[in-house]
């Protein structure tokens, strides 16, 4: 059995770890609430925008470059991760899905390029020895619409220059505080979604000032919004995942402290008993 002093030392070290995990959990909880509000506010807008655009894309046949489906020669895969770890399988799940998608595309004989949003994703891509086209880091905590605009601009430019013919984004979709789902979505070309209520939209739409003018501003805007949404979804998921994993770490520390305390008390008891035995033994020896 370990010495009393050593056990005491371990207990105090576990206690201070517990304090840290507990504090991190509280910080994540606060960040999570903020992130959750933002994503819940944005969702209806993003969804309506998607509806409006897919109705449009389904009813008209335009030559807009962002809607055009080209022969797939090169696919860009973007991994959306966090800047920090200590959030369970949050980042690992993304990487698993990315690797899977890469393999799928490669089996279709399509070239793949990778980009990452978030420091963890950047590191993970590099560590696997995969080529990294572009990386955006330092977004965590203060995601603004400008971040989404910057990313969208880069993607659109490269798409129009035919650096790649398809863009796929892998991110954690926020379901609830306990559930996050890895989501793989195609950003470009914009999908021609088959409408669930076709009769409503079979009428041709009129455009003011012109179809071209509307598409020219609305399509990039939509991409920005979809990216912004993914950023916020991912942020909420990350904080939720961190909250859960810190909660578990705190619980584990509690269990550990309990078992160490028990061990400590047993050891203390044993040493007291031993001392008593010595004294009693000594007294007995004197009597005779």
């Amino acid at each position, binding site marked *: 059995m370990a010495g009393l002093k050593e056990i005491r030392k371990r207990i105090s070290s576990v206690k201070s770890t517990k304090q840290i995990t507990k504090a991190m959990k509280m910080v994540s909880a606060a960040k999570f609430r903020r992130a959750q509000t933002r994503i*819940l*506010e*944005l969702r*209806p*807008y*993003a969804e*309506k*925008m998607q*509806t*409006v655009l897919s*109705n*449009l894309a389904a009813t008209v046949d335009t030559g807009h470059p962002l809607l055009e489906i080209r022969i797939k020669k090169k696919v860009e895969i973007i991994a959306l991760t966090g800047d920090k770890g200590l959030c369970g399988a949050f980042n690992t799940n993304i990487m698993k899905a990315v690797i899977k998608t890469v393999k799928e595309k490669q089996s279709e004989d399509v070239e793949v390029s990778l980009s990452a949003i978030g420091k963890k994703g950047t590191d993970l891509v590099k560590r696997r020895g995969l080529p990294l086209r572009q990386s955006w880091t330092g977004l965590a905590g203060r995601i603004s*619409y400008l971040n989404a605009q910057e990313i969208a601009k880069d993607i659109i430019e490269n798409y129009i220059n035919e650096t790649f013919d398809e863009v796929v984004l892998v991110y954690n979709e926020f379901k609830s505080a306990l559930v996050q789902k890895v989501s793989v979505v195609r950003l470009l070309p914009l999908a021609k979604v088959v409408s669930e209520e076709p009769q*409503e*939209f079979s*009428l*041709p*739409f*009129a*455009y*003011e*000032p012109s179809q071209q*003018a*509307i598409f020219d*501003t*609305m399509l990039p805007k939509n991409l920005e*919004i979809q990216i*912004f949404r993914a950023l916020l979804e991912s942020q909420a998921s990350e904080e939720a995942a961190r909250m859960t994993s810190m909660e578990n770490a705190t619980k584990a520390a509690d269990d550990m402290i309990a078992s160490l305390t028990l061990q400590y008390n047993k050891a203390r008891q044993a040493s007291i008993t031993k001392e008593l035995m010595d004294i009693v033994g000594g007294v007995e020896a004197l009597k005779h």
Partner: protein
Amino acid sequence: MEGRIKLDIVTPHGLVLSEDVDEITAPGSEGEFGVLAGHESFITSLSIGVLTCKAGSKTEYVFINSGYIEVTAERVIVLADSAERSEDIDAERAAAAKQRAEERLKHADNVDFARATAALERATTRIQLVQKK
């Protein structure tokens, strides 16, 4: 209800309004226009302005800061960069914004000019809407 339009106004900061209304007047980029039920399907962009919707005897005014509107026979979706119902407008903030924008316009170079003009227009529209009530 028969003859009514389902109006949804959404912004990146949340749903502003979702109601069944009789009549809508919206600030289109090509000029203000009205919508009644059974309107032809069309899409246009919106400029800074005030959207008016009437439901029965009730009239509501909503400040719209640019965006898009999709009109179909029985439904209207407004995608605005931001929007506020007239009762939610912060008059003091709008007044302060107006002052700031005017200040900037006085000694603005070309880059800031468009932004300051837009800011001024937003502030003025908000103030007008508050006073209208």
